[in-house]
Structure formats: C-alpha cells, structure tokens
C-alpha cells in the first residue's frame, strides 16, 4: 500500500508534465475545428451557411493547417519554455488569419458581388484558443516596458501588412469597409478627437484640481463625492441631461454656436466624456501627492525650495506614475465610451456599431467594434509601458 506521501507524488507527476491550461486550449481549439470555419452568405443580411475547415480550403492547405495546428497544440499541452509557447501561438494566430483569407478567396464566386464570406464560430474559437495560449505565455514571461512596446509595434506592422496585401479582401468585414471607406476614416478621426480631446481636457482640469485638493484638504471630500456621483450616472443619461443646458447656451450665448456648441452632436459628448474622466485624474493626482514619503518633501523644504519649486521639481515628478495610471484608466475608458456619442449625433465608430446592431449585420458591428477594441488595447499597452518607465525613473 502507498503512503499518503507517495500518492501525492504520483498525482503531481501528471501535473509536472502536462500544462492544464494547454489542455483547455486544446479542447477549445478542437471544438473550433468541428464548427464552421467560414460562413457563406448569399447577401450581407441573411443568415449564412457554415463551412468546415477542410471544405473551405484547398486540400493541401487543409492538411498543412491540421498538421500545423496539431504541433502547436502539442507544445501547448507540454510544460516547455515560455518563449517556445509564445512563438508557437504567435505563428498559429498568423496562420489562422491567413487561412481565413485563403478560404474567403477560394469560396468567393467570381460573378456574384452580393455574396459574402464571413468569419465562422470555429475560426473565432481557434483564435480564442491561440490568443489564450499567447496571453498566458506573455504574462508568465512578464516582459519589460520596451519589449511590450516593441511587441505591440511588431503586431501592428504584421497586421497592417496583411491588410495592405489584400489577402483578406474577399472577407465580408473588409467588403463592408470597402463600401464605406471615406465614412470609416471620418468616423475614426471623430472617435479619436472625442477620446483624446476629452482626455486632454480632463487632464488639464483634473491635475490642477487634484493639486488643489492636496493643498486645501477642506475641498477634498466635496470634490471627490461630486465626481464620484458624476461617474455613477449612466452615459446615455448624462449625454441626454447635457442636451438641455447646451441647447440653451447655444441659443442664448452669443458666439457659442460658432465655436460648435449645440444641444446635440459633439459638444454634449465632449462635455460628458470629460466629466467622466475627471474622477480618476483628480483622485490619482491626490493619491500620488499624498503618497509621497514625508522625508522627501521635508528634505526639499529644508533645502529652501519654495512650495512652487517643490511641486515642479519634487512632488509632481515623483507622483507621475500614479497620475499616469489615472490617465491610462480614462483613456481606455473614453475610447470605449466614445462609441455612445453616436446615439446623440456625436459621430465616432459607434455609428457603425449601432447601425450594424440595427440591421443585425455582424460585420458592420465589427467594423466599428474591432478598431475600438484595438485602439483601447494599444492605448492600455502603451500607457502601461510609460507608467513602468516613469516609475523606474522615479525610483532611481
């Protein structure tokens, strides 16, 4: 009979060799293989018909795909070096994207411009499984800020090259893009204006307010409570509530209309987005300043710095990582929230999201949602790296 110790050891033998996450990744990927790889639709609105991987691709490509995927999954399931898992999952993701393009090319009828090839549930599952593996490998390797920025740039260049090469042009989402390219770029610009404009405004207002809250503790709880309530108000309600006063200003304040203030459109959206963004900026500025070691501040005082000099040369630089964290939060938040501006005529990528939802056209929704998510993700990675870099500088 085995002692408890021996049973424990033999149970952990399996654990030592097999990666449990890899098992999940494999299960998801295998499920993905049996679901439609792409979807064939007679036109852009009707529900389509799913086509599995082996039927959607030329035989040579299907065999290569299965062999390739199999080897990636073996790497996923074994406990091997993180770098190997990272390379395997990255190559796998690239291959799936290229295969989707190839499938769309293969299946598109020559003479039928109405027919659409959409991405099937199986492809999504494959992408999900490989992205899981990639995320796990990346988070275990814990790359430094420059590596993260480099990887982001690399991923953007690769994806841009794929889009530019035309490999995916037969895909339905790119056909949606093709039929409204000017509108897409216009709304993207508007989206960026809303998101970055509101973040700039909120930083410009919020940092001084945060400094004031730090200096004058009497105003602290009042300001924070007010901003907390503003952040709690649902976006559509805040957009709506702002319509009335802005319409009044547009009608009654001379010159307001000429600088673009009106009841609906960009003005209420910009005001609401700025208002939402204030709380994280003010709160993080305050936390950053109060969190400084009193000895540092005392030393600055002891060396005869005026309070303005202390703020510029000592307190703000040291509080910078915390303030940047606040800015990262609001940038990611406002890139997402800007989609709602479309509801009050403010434009932005939300226009496609809501149009697509109204027409149940998933490709149109994706045309709005995918760039939004990509923007928010890129912003999160970039600012996260800046925060680490500024924290390194503040430490040394």
């Amino acid at each position, binding site marked *: 009979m085995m002692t408890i*110790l021996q049973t*424990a050891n033999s149970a952990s033998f399996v654990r030592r060799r097999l990666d449990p996450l890899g098992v999940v990744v494999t299960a998801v990927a295998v499920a993905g293989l049996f679901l439609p790889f792409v979807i064939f639709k007679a036109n852009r609105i009707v529900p389509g018909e799913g086509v599995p991987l082996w039927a959607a691709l030329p035989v040579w490509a299907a065999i290569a795909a299965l062999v390739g995927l199999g080897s990636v999954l073996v790497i996923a399931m074994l406990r091997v070096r993180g770098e190997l898992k990272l390379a395997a999952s990255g190559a796998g993701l690239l291959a799936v994207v290229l295969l989707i393009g190839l499938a769309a090319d293969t299946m598109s009828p020559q003479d039928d411009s109405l027919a659409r090839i959409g991405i099937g549930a199986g492809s999504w599952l494959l992408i999900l499984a490989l992205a899981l593996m990639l995320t796990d490998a990346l988070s275990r390797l814990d790359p430094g800020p420059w590596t993260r920025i480099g990887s982001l740039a690399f991923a953007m260049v690769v994806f841009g090259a794929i889009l530019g090469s035309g490999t995916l042009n037969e895909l339905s989402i790119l056909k949606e893009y093709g039929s409204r390219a000017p509108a897409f770029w216009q709304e993207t610009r508007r989206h960026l204006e809303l998101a970055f404009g509101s973040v700039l405004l909120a930083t410009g207002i919020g940092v001084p307010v945060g400094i004031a809250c730090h200096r004058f503790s009497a105003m602290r709880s009042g300001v924070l409570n007010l901003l907390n309530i503003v952040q709690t108000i649902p976006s559509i309600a805040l957009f709506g509530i702002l319509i009335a006063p802005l319409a009044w200003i547009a009608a009654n304040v001379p010159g307001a209309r000429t600088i673009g203030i009106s009841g609906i459109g960009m003005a209420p959206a910009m005001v609401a987005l700025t208002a939402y963004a204030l709380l994280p900026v003010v709160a993080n500025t305050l936390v950053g300043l109060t969190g400084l070691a009193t000895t540092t501040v005392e030393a600055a005082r002891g060396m005869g710095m005026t309070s303005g000099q202390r703020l510029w040369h000592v307190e703000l630089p040291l509080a910078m990582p915390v303030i940047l964290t606040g800015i990262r939060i609001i940038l990611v938040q406002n890139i997402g929230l800007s989609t709602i501006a479309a509801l009050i005529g403010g434009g932005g990528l939300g226009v496609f999201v809501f149009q697509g939802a109204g027409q149940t056209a998933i490709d149109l929704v994706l045309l709005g949602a995918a760039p939004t998510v990509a923007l928010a993700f890129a912003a999160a990675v970039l600012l996260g790296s800046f925060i680490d870099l500024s924290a390194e500088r503040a430490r040394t």
Partner: protein
Amino acid sequence: MIEICDVVKSFGDTRAVDEVSLMIAPHTICALVGTSGSGKTTLLRMINRLVEPTSGNIRVDGRDVMSVPAYELRRQMGYVIQGHGLFPHWTIARNIATVPSLLGWDRRTIDRRVDELLDLFQLDPATYRNRLPGELSGGQRQRVGVARALAAKPNILLMDEPFGALDPVTRGKAQEELRIIQQKFGTTIVLVTHDMDEATHLGDRIAVLDKGRLLQHGEPADIIANPATDFVRELVGTTDRAFRLLSLATLGEHVESGTADGEPLEATMTLRSAYSELLWSGRKAAPVARDGTVLGIVTLDGLGRLAARP
C-alpha cells in the same frame, strides 16, 4: 513524546531541513533556536504537517503523523504563530472556540471553556468575550492567541516566535505566564525562537539549528557551558555567558548556611537577579527567605563560584 527521525525537507535544490533527529520528552519545553533560514520553523511546521517531509518520519506518541489526516492531527495540537493570526471577523469567544467547535463540542461546554481560558489569561470574560480582535492591544491579542491554541486541551503546543511582535515588558510577562501555564497543565511545548535569552529562560532543552542541520541539543546550562561549535558559541554570546548561567537557577536551589543582615531576598529570585541585588546594595551576603521564613543566606563568593565555567 515527539520523535523526529532523520527528517529531510528539500525545496528544489536546497535542503531547508537536513537529516534532523530529535526527541522531545513529554511535559517539557523544547526551544528550537537559530537564525532566520536555519530551518527551525520548517521543522516545527512538519510536526503538524503544514509542511510534509521529503524523507524521514515524525511520530507523536508513537504514531506516525503521516498516518492520520492532516486536519485531525492539527486539531490535537495547539498552534501559536507570530502576529497571533486571530480571525479579525470573529469575536474573541468565537476565536478561542475554533478548535472545540471543529471537534463538535456542545455549546455549553465550549462557552464554559472559553470563560475559563479568558479568566486564566486575566481577561474579564464579560468585557472581552464579544469584542473583535481589532479592539484589543497587542499583548491581549497574543494572550488570546495562546488561549485559542489551548482551547481543546491539547497535549502538545507548537509555538512559532509567539512573542516576536511584543515590546520587552509585555514580552517578559507573557513568558512568565507561559511558564506557569505549562507547569500547571504539563503541556509539551515546542517553541521556535531566534532569541537565546528566551530559549534559555523557557526551554528545558534547547536545540540549535543552522542551515538545516541540528548542531546541538541539550539542557540550557550544558549549551552555555559547552557550546559544540563556533556558531553555537556565537549564538550564546561570550561576554555575558556567566550571567546566562546564573539566570537558569533560583536562590532556593542554592541556599548556603549562615547568617546575614539586611532585607531578605525571595527564594524564587534567579541567581542573576540576586547577584545584581547584592552588588547594588553593596553587601557581600544577604538572607534568603521563602514566604517570610529565612532559609539561609546567599553570598557573592558563592554566586561567583556558581557562575564560573563548570
């Protein structure tokens, strides 16, 4: 009786505990002493299986600890850690009642036991029963920690730096209290400490560990007098070892015959305190008394002979 036989614990390539064998007699206090990283805490935690040995075995009262489920084993032993580890969301009474409740004692027995222990540790039950740990002082929390460990009347009490977080005055009181309770219940105590004073003061026997190995195991007087290695000598300290030796015995055990003038000294006083007292009052000798009855005298010369290298 705790028997530790050839126990090894490896974490990766390092051996935290390296072939340690140790016998701890019932009703005694054994102090495990060492610097941080010496393996003393790991050794203690193997007794209640918070850590499982890589090889070797540990028997408690003749039974291998690996032969019973860990939770059952742990309920039979008290366990006290540094920083007390009280459950902050439970009242003092519920904290003390933890193990009795796990063992399924009935409510009235538990309540009675809780009050008994609060009394024992001089915490008024009516006042403290329903307080939360956050409302107590550090010293009080530490006492509740020990009371909780004793709640189910265990034969064995494992203590990991139990007094580490206390200020010197509170610490001294807590040590006295522990000695009294140990004598009263005859509990076997294994105490981990890095403080040689605490070890010589409380331990019936001391085990010195370094880098996972047991360097020396013996009575405090023996360890002070004949340190086995340079490391042990350093730990014991060379400048005040004579005083350490004196602090191990009380006046009552070394009464000389004769007479002396002045205020008598209590027989329960340690020899070290008596020595200091004689120097301070400028006397060469003083009477020794127990409960007002003079037993004999103590002399500076006599103490000097006792403090010399045996």
